[in-house]
């Protein structure tokens, strides 16, 4: 008998409940509409209107039903004491960090569709001299339910609900770059894959949400999964709680786990936790203190264990100005069964940032980094990022 995974079973159950609920919503809508005076008027007119009129009327609405379109551009100037080599992603100078184009719209009363594509430079150090080219890739492309009660079903390619930072797009990062632990352990693009997701509230008086996700584990940059078996999927669980400490202050705490089979048919596991305290007294004053920690156990040819975290503070002292500070730590131990001692690598990084944000749609941020990674000389670098958004731009998550 063929073994059916829990993810497949859950997907089938969700599909059936979605169909049932959609039918129920349609019936309720029709019932509600029939009882309204507006419907009564429309009904009396409907006999005089030819059947093709609705299509003609829709076509004449022009751009009314076009999706919301937004474009974001990140332009980055970098100067590092280690950035003098030939072209690579850390080379000094001015570069297009990323351009992102987003489309989003409700499809019908039951679904919303979101797509975000990113244009960025990819480098190939294996050629002589090193070469680069621009690539245009789907960052997130998913459909999300609108009509399911108390839960949201998502299907497509999306950023996995692992911690807080992994969910952010580059233009919404608190600093110019992602934390070391995220880049090293989750990958340059983070944990982002094709699958489905179900998020639901716990019936509690505060915000308490659980998200269950099942991913293919075959996405770009997910070398730590890539199971040889097509039936093995990656499971992600995220629990998020948020409490209002006062009208102006909130405390958010989350725990996350992700696991899936790797190319050695062993299980790669991630664990993470995040904590954020946010205080906003007015549009001119805010303070955010955040920390995020994660660890990865990756048994392959060697038993690798990596763990790291970042803690940062962001302070807004006037309508347009922010100052920020961040400290980071990362340790990766690689235990070869044939070796007596594990091989360990430590990295530490400190960052300071000043941000000038003239409006919701543009920003200028200057960041200084001091990064030690075991090499003789620490890296010191200055980053100047210009951030521009045009068109429709959805609000960022709290």
């Amino acid at each position, binding site marked *: 008998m063929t073994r059916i995974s829990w993810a497949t079973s859950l997907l089938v159950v969700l599909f059936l409940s979605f169909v049932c609920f959609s039918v129920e919503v349609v019936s309720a809508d029709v019932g509600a509409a029939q009882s309204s005076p507006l419907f009564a008027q429309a009904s009396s007119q409907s006999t005089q209107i030819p059947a093709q009129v609705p299509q003609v009327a829709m076509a004449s609405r022009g751009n009314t039903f076009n999706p919301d379109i937004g474009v974001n551009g990140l332009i980055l100037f970098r100067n590092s004491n280690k950035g003098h080599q030939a072209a690579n992603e850390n080379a000094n100078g001015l570069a297009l960090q990323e351009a992102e184009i987003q489309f989003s719209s409700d499809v019908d009363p039951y679904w919303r569709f979101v797509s975000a594509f990113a244009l960025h430079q990819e480098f190939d150090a294996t050629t002589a001299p090193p070469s680069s080219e621009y690539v245009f890739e789907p960052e997130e492309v998913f459909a999300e339910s609108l*009509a399911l*009660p108390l839960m949201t079903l998502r299907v497509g390619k999306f950023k996995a609900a692992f911690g807080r930072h992994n969910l952010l797009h580059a233009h919404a990062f608190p600093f110019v770059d992602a934390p070391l632990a995220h880049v090293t352990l989750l990958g340059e693009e983070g944990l982002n894959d094709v699958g489905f997701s179900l998020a639901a509230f716990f019936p509690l008086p505060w*915000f308490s949400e659980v998200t269950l996700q099942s991913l293919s584990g075959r996405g770009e940059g997910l070398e730590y999964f890539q199971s040889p078996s097509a039936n093995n999927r990656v499971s992600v669980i995220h629990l998020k709680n948020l409490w209002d400490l006062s009208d102006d202050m909130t405390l*958010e705490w989350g725990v996350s786990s992700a696991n899936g089979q790797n190319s050695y048919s062993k299980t790669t596991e991630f664990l993470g936790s995040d904590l954020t305290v946010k205080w906003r007294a007015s*549009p001119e004053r805010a303070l955010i203190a955040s920390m995020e920690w994660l660890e990865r156990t990756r048994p392959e040819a060697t038993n690798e264990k990596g763990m790291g975290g970042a803690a940062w503070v962001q302070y807004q002292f006037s309508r347009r100005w922010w100052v920020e500070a961040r400290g980071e730590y990362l340790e990766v131990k690689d235990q070869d069964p044939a070796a007596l001692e594990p091989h360990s690598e430590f990295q530490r990084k400190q960052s300071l940032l000043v941000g000038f944000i003239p409006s919701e749609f543009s920003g200028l941020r200057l960041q200084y980094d001091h990064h030690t990674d075991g090499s003789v000389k620490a890296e010191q670098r200055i980053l100047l990022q210009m951030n521009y958004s045009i068109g429709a731009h959805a609000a960022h998550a709290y």
Partner: protein
Amino acid sequence: MSQLTCFMTVLFLALPLFAKLNVVATTSDIQALVRAVGAEQLNLTVIAKGSQDPHYIEAKPSYMVKMRDADLLVSNGLSLEVGWLPSLIRGARNSKINPGARGFLELGSLIEPIDKAAGSLTRARGDVHPEGNPHFTLDPMRVGDLAVKVAERLAELDPKNRALYESRARTYRDQLVTKTQEWQARIQASGVIKVITYHPSLNYFLQRFELIAASHLEEKPGIPPTAQHILKVIDTIKREKIKWILVDNFFDTKIADRVAKDVPTSKVRTVGVAVDSGPGLATIDDVIEKLVQAVEGK
């Protein structure tokens, strides 16, 4: 089946008959308007408090919890909440309050707005609202008409209290008509015709009472004023002999104070532009009364 079981079953089935409608209002003004119509028949909660600038509310997940169980969401519309309400509605996962559903009532779509953006729309013009000025709750006549619309929707969702909602709405509208005539007479008696405001949020109030905003301290809505623009405002105040610079409660008075220092004949008044934005501002009538007093110089 025992008598107790029968009693408990009947009580359980009858519970919805005693349940109050859960209503969420996006701003304190809308909360006050809905309260005037629904009173104790509703469980009424609010998102943006009167002391907060409703353009810049953060979409806190705790607001989603408030909206999770709502039967009705009453919003301002005209893009006032565009930065935060859509994500709250999605996060609440309550299809009863999705746009287009009966549990979603956008008041801005029920009025004739002023200040509709003309010409080519670009964000170089600042924080423009393409559909018109969203601060219509400062016009008592529009508020009175909206009370009737709110009553209609409450009656649809809670038919057993229809008569109560409709009668309260009519009474409230009539009271506002009478008060508007009194306020109009007082403003005419004050002799004030032109004022300076910080942001176009007072435009409905000014239009209703035939006052003119000679200039705004913000050159473009939502964008902090430039020094060059402030010099122009100072010239306007001197030329037009304007007495009052009215600053909304959620803006800093620093710039207005500097202007008043340069033109000693002008005076700065911080005015509450929303319900609960200050002491004694529990209703929309209170807010209008204080604005009228500010124009009178009381």
